[in-house]
């Protein structure tokens, strides 16, 4: 039933015609373990980007008003100190990927980006609730990029992708299974090939590859530490769908890996309601701030 097999080579070649992947993102990920370097990279890069600068200054000035600081904050270093490194990093990462996704989207449902943002903040929030060695920034980036393969398919195979989604809906099968029938591979594998091409960290590549099947993905060699990020993105997307985030009418939960939940130490009892509430609020807030412009 495969219509047009998509190959690794084809993904690599065609991906070169897409806009450049944001260098800011790789710089931030490379300096996560060095707070001083991270501060310098953040402030220097933010200062070059008017959109990110405006968002950071807005957050800082809101904080300044609440902290009853009288003078308006106009420089990025002060703004970063006021708003906090974690928050400014969050703004910079989502803003840069939002600009990137906005540049290559093509005939995608309008909920693609809100869903990505929801999964990103869901994974970022879950890092606070599980005891595994994953940074919030890696979780955010992997969550934001988990469906990047769908963006590639929509850009280069829009008509077939629409038919594939319709087929999945009619037959009540997971989209990733229908994609294998249509394209020979699913969006998770395509996304991982793209992430490899962009030289993203191996754990993020593996997380994109394995987000629907966290125990699989043998093409992408994983260490035990890498497995935690794969598990986190898998559970993060399921949770985002379960809570109906991202404004998608087609939010569905098909499967959830019990092994992934166990490795993360996640137990679904009434204590999870606090996590649900935080994830919902953060998703709604992030999607208000980081919405793509209307086309």
């Amino acid at each position, binding site marked *: 039933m495969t219509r047009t097999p998509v190959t690794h080579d084809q993904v690599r070649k065609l991906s070169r015609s897409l806009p450049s992947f944001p260098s800011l993102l790789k710089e931030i990920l490379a300096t996560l373990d060095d707070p001083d370097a991270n501060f310098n990279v953040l402030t220097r890069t933010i200062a070059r980007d008017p959109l990110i600068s405006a968002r950071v200054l807005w957050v800082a000035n809101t904080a300044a008003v609440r902290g009853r600081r009288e003078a308006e904050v106009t420089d990025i270093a002060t703004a970063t100190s006021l708003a906090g490194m974690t928050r400014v990093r969050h703004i910079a990462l989502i803003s840069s990927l939002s600009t990137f996704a906005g540049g290559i989207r093509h005939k995608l449902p309008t909920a693609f980006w809100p869903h990505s943002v929801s999964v990103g903040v869901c994974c970022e929030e879950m890092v606070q609730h599980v005891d595994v060695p994953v940074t919030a920034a890696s979780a955010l980036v992997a969550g934001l990029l988990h469906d990047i393969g769908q963006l590639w398919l929509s850009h280069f195979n829009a008509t077939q992708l629409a038919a594939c989604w319709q087929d999945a809906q009619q037959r009540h099968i997971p989209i990733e299974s229908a994609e294998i029938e249509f394209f020979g591979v699913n969006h998770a594998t395509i996304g991982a090939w793209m992430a490899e091409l962009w030289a993203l960290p191996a754990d993020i590549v593996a997380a994109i590859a394995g987000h629907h099947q966290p125990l699989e993905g043998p093409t992408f060699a994983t260490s035990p530490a890498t497995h935690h990020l794969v598990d986190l993105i898998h559970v993060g997307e*399921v949770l985002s769908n379960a809570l*109906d985030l991202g404004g998608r009418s087609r939010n569905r*939960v098909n499967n*959830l890996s*019990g092994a992934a939940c166990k490795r993360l130490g996640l137990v679904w009892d009434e204590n999870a309601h606090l996590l*649900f509430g935080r994830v919902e*609020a953060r998703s709604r807030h992030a999607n208000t701030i980081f919405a793509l412009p209307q086309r």
Partner: protein
Amino acid sequence: MRTRHQFIPIEDARVGMVLGVAANAIEKGLLSLTLPAGHTLTEDSLGQLVAHHAEFIQIEYPDTRTDETVAEEVAVAARRVMDIFEDADLSDPTLATLFDQVLAYRSE
């Protein structure tokens, strides 16, 4: 009086709002500030939360809905949860517990 809880970003917090759960600000892995559940926000405490980089708080407010409205809203939310889990195998214990908790959360 029946009350409801809601998480809100710190930008939306106002003086006079009541915390539904303790607000904890954590910086560099350490607890830097905590305000107890039931605390009514003042200019000072709001300023402290901002200074300690708190991002979200959970507030408690009176639930003025009638019983009938509550029942209707819960029924609509439950139907949506059923739709979302329509293709899930609920004999799987992990999926079943997630389903139960999302349903319970939507019924609050």
